[in-house]
């Protein structure tokens, strides 16, 4: 267990987090890494986000895609839950709304495998403070 005993330790941990990510890219044979964030706040879970997240976690390895599938909090689009954000390495993140299992399958086959956009994109319209 790492413990942080000084400000320098905090920066060291941050560096090691970034290095671990870099390492994953290299180990992935320099194929593009896929990161999927599923909005898993109470409301997202209530509308089925957990099943969608499990689907990605099960299906992606079967289809030979190396991806980090992780849960996150509310993205704000209550009207379009379940929502998720996909970032293909070196590209801009894309957000999808109303993602059910069928849509999830389409996203894997078309967007993740071929880079093709599919219906249900939510254009990102905000700035972040960090």
């Amino acid at each position, binding site marked *: *267990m*790492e*413990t*942080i*005993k*000084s*400000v320098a330790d*905090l920066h060291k*941990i*941050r560096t090691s*987090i*970034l290095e671990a990510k870099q390492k994953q890219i290299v180990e992935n044979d320099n194929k*593009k890494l896929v990161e999927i*964030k599923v*909005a898993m*706040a*109470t*409301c997202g*879970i209530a509308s089925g986000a957990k099943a969608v997240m499990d689907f990605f976690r099960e299906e992606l390895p079967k289809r030979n895609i190396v991806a980090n599938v*992780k*849960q*996150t*909090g*509310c*993205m*704000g*689009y*209550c*009207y*379009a839950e379940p929502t998720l*954000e996909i970032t293909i390495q070196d590209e*801009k993140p894309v957000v999808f*709304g*109303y993602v059910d299992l069928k849509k999830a399958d389409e996203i894997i086959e078309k967007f993740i*495998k*071929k*880079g*093709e*956009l*599919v*219906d*249900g*994109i*939510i*254009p*990102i*319209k*905000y*700035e*972040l*403070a*960090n």
Partner: protein
Amino acid sequence: MSNRYRKNLLVCNGSSCQQASDADLVAFINFKLKEYNLEDGIKVVQSVCSNKCSIGPNIIVYPDNVEYSKVTKSDIDDIIIEHLLNERIVERLVFDKENGNGVAPIKQYRIALRNCGFIDPEEIKDYIEKDGYDALAKCLSKYTPEEVTQEVIKSGLRGRGGGGFPTGLKWEITSKSVSDQKYVVCNADEGDPGAFMDRSVLEGDPHSVLEAMAICGYCIGANKGIIYVRAEYPLAVKRLKIAINQAKEYGLLGKNIFGTGFEFTITIKYGAGAFICGEETALIHSMEGFLGEPTLKPPFPSVSGYLKKPTNVNNVETFANIPAIINKGADWYASIGTEKSKGTKVFALAGKINNVGLIEVPMGITLREIIYDIGGGIVNGKKFKAVQTGGPSGGCLTEKHLDLPIDFDSLTAAGSMMGSGGMIVMDEDDCMVSMARFYLEFIVEESCGKCAPCRIGNKRLHEMLTKLCDGKGTMEDLDLLRNLSVVVKDTSLCGLGQTSPNPILSTMANFYDEYYAHVAEHRCPSGQCKSFMLYYISEENCIGCLVCARKCPVGAISGEKKKLHIINQELCTKCGVCMEKCKFHAVHLN
């Protein structure tokens, strides 16, 4: 990767864009693309609505990120020839400030929600990666508590729990209280109907609250923090617990943080879900194990709070802003917002609005921008009537307030209040008398009963509103309603009773005609109050089939086969089953 499409057209599929559209744009564009032989390289994709609804239909060309607005059928050729074939932007369809046509791009700006939806809330490393705990490190290693407090004062941050008290000032006052023990309390009670901002922050970014509480502890001289969260938020509680444990393991909470000798620990206390326990003195009593009842201020918690020790109470969203303020500086924060309300505000949009959801916008944005550009307008294209801000303590804003820049002071001046950020949107079908009654019903249930004006007064107010909705009100009732509202406001012990008549007073001020109609004209203008409805069966259409009589759950319909049926108005509960079941459209409603 083999993307066969070199460009995409993202056509907004939101209902307000569709309503504004002169054609099925997706089908029309696909048809046109074929005409130009472009269907192999360009794909049309339907996108989910998220912005600029008032100037829809909107189309985004991807990956160029050019957005065209107010697009009609006749513009499609231009977009195809100019943009898709010649890579030239069709300037006349680009709506933004620079282009001189007056429509500023409406941007949400996320400060409190900066990590919400981007990091795994159960993974401290995700937070650390996003500059997490840098603010605490900076404060402990570089600045004195006074310097940090001054920075928070300079930022202009005001409490997001409803009152809008300057946060830095509160910290300064608490820091000056002399005591062997002080406390930092995070108010995560969030009780008003329709509000879910704090829950989202706790579920999405719990570490930002922990970090800010530690910074507050450093400033006021406290080494203990307590989060008071309602037990009805199980996921928030779970993620908070995980976050606290991870922070402890990493040494970011506990003794000797960053090797500076500063100690800070955080524990959780659970609320049972009473609205009054969000009021800070009631909250403190509830934490102490007593009844959740308020006490008179002063003394303020900053002087005598939890266990009679100086206690700094702040709201979840207030705290979530702090690390960003420390990292980016007070001047940056103070550059956002209006003169007296700095920064951004998170709002929970609910009710008859298309894009129900959580938004964070700079203070000073107008209601029109929130409702029509971010919120996607009113459901089913109905007419906007009012929006209730501030929950049961607030009031309604109407059409004439649509262009009011929203901040703490402007909302109060308009007879409403910022409150915690719930916005409930109402359309032409909503009755404002019923709306006021709904809030008073909530208040009657939630009043703790300690002081008579709130306990008895609100009950009488609720009875009078029920009388109006039942069609039994008199003109004297209207006067009494207004007078009693003022008395309850003036004489109640705490903020609950001092604000609970606001929904009545503001609807009476803005929609007096509706109150008048309920009494003098014996009708509910929006047709929502059932008691004014009259179901009757028309002679022309009724064939005497007995279906309605059999289906009526209260046996209010009588009649014989092949003869006109009659509804007994005394017995009728206005459920509408007869109208639904009649195949011959013989049941009418007036």
